[in-house]
């Protein structure tokens, strides 16, 4: 059993939807019962700041990782990447199920688009599987897939001890071995989650007797208590956020987003790569930069349009035709300009319309070598006629 454990992190749905909570808890407890996975739960991934305990916990994890959340897999992957939780893209069957609905013809251009991107930096040799919990409401679907992934990725290293993958993780961050450290700041979880933490920890570690972690918590738990879902690392209440997430497998570093955004969200890193620098400068609800991006690399995971929220093949509206264009929909660019103006006016600034930062689509084309005509033109310019 220990040979096929895999690390699973469940990112909670924002809000308190009981159906979603139930699915999360059901998956967590069943995985723990079966011993398939090391399970932990963090608040809604997208809302976590990079110094949030939940995000620090994710960063501390080593080895292959499955992240389940209420976001498109692309959104999960690139939110993690932005926060330094890096890895190669693992391919889950569940996500392929989702893709199977899309038109097959969509796939070749999509792969082509991916190959044009500048890619992520410093990607370690580990797989991150991102799974959208909106795929299905049946926990069994996820359990089966995680069992399959655990089998697929099992490596001898994991068999070295009952801690499994945690051998390489930093124990001081682990909710399993140090419940007090992580749950002490999670007052929102209430007493019951807190008091079960020790129990949960012992199950995660594969120790089914009453471990010493109970003692550490100072609670005398009855051994017959049912297993409950692990406490939420860093607490359940997190401020909702809104910011763009760049998919570097698509991004060509064309800089149209930084030119278009007038709120100082974007910057560049030391290697002159585009970066979402000041996430919280972004205007809630405004997806304008995503619309001007020529390769659809900018994700707003909470936007209602699937193509903007990170769905793979653009808008997914079952098998129905979208007639919006025929009925007078503005182009993406017109929409972006409208949205930006609205936010400028709301900030007490003047609307700029199409006057500022409009895409220069030709800059995306590969630069041609200088030719004689360029030299001639430069020569003429220098004559200052």
């Amino acid at each position: 059993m220990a040979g096929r454990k895999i690390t699973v992190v469940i990112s909670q749905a924002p809000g308190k939807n009981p159906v979603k909570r139930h699915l999360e808890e059901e998956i967590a407890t069943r995985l723990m019962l079966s011993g398939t996975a090391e399970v932990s739960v963090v608040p809604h991934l997208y809302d976590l700041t990079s110094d949030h305990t939940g995000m620090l916990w994710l960063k501390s994890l080593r080895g292959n990782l499955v992240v389940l959340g209420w976001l498109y897999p692309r959104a999960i992957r690139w939110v993690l990447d932005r926060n330094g939780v890096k890895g190669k893209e693992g391919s889950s069957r569940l996500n392929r199920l989702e893709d199977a609905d899309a038109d097959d013809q969509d796939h070749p251009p999509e792969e082509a688009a991916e190959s044009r991107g500048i890619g992520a930096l410093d990607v370690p040799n580990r797989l991150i599987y991102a799974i959208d919990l909106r795929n299905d409401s049946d926990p069994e679907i996820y359990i089966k897939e995680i069992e399959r992934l655990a089998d697929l990725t099992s490596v001898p290293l994991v068999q070295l001890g009952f801690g499994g993958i945690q051998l390489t993780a930093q124990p001081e961050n682990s909710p399993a071995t140090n419940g007090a450290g992580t749950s002490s700041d999670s007052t929102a979880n209430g007493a019951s989650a807190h008091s079960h933490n020790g129990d949960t920890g012992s199950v995660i570690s594969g120790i089914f007797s009453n471990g010493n972690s109970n003692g550490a918590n100072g609670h005398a738990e009855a051994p017959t208590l049912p297993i409950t879902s692990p406490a939420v690392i860093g607490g359940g209440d997190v401020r909702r956020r809104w910011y763009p997430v760049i998919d570097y497998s698509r991004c060509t570093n064309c800089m149209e987003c930084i030119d278009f955004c007038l709120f100082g969200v974007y910057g560049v890193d030391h290697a002159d790569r585009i970066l979402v620098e000041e996430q919280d400068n972004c205007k809630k609800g405004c997806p304008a930069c995503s619309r001007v991006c020529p390769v659809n690399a900018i994700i707003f995971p909470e936007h209602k349009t699937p193509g903007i929220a990170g769905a793979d093949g653009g808008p997914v509206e079952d098998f129905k035709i979208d007639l919006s264009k025929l009925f007078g929909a503005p182009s993406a660019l017109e929409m972006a300009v409208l949205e930006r103006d609205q936010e400028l006016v709301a900030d007490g600034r003047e609307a700029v319309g199409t006057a500022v930062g409009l895409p220069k689509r030709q800059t995306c084309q590969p630069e041609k070598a200088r030719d004689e005509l360029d030299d001639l033109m430069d020569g003429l310019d220098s004559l200052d006629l």
Partner: protein
Amino acid sequence: MSEPLVFMMGKFEARIPVDRTYFESHFWAVPHGDVFRVGFTSYAVRLLQDVYFLDWSIDADTQVRKKQSIGEIESSKAVSTMYAPADGHVIRFNEALLNDPSLINADNYDKGWLYEFSTTQPLLSPDEYVKVLEAGWDQTQRLLKNQFNE
């Protein structure tokens, strides 16, 4: 009343009555008091087919800009956001449709009107609207993957 113009969508005859004006986004407008009543043309309804669901995202008595999103429509074949056809004022919605959107299918040029609207922007004559249809038909068919060209 004069005979309507007809635009052939494959074998389907889309009737374009000549007693009113049009927006290029496939809405008709007919004067009603000092304002226009606006509804889907037969061309639009043929593309939609059976309307299941209609929802307005703005309140009645709202000033709108052209192309501003004002609602959603879902039918057996399609989904679409609806947009203001011009700069103007949406005065009130057809309450009857909120209970029974199928009026759009049953009587799109009369009882199936969508909203009352005032605008000072120029509208298209029936002839001009048919020219818009002719110019756009190839593209529309590509959008629909030829499924109406039976």
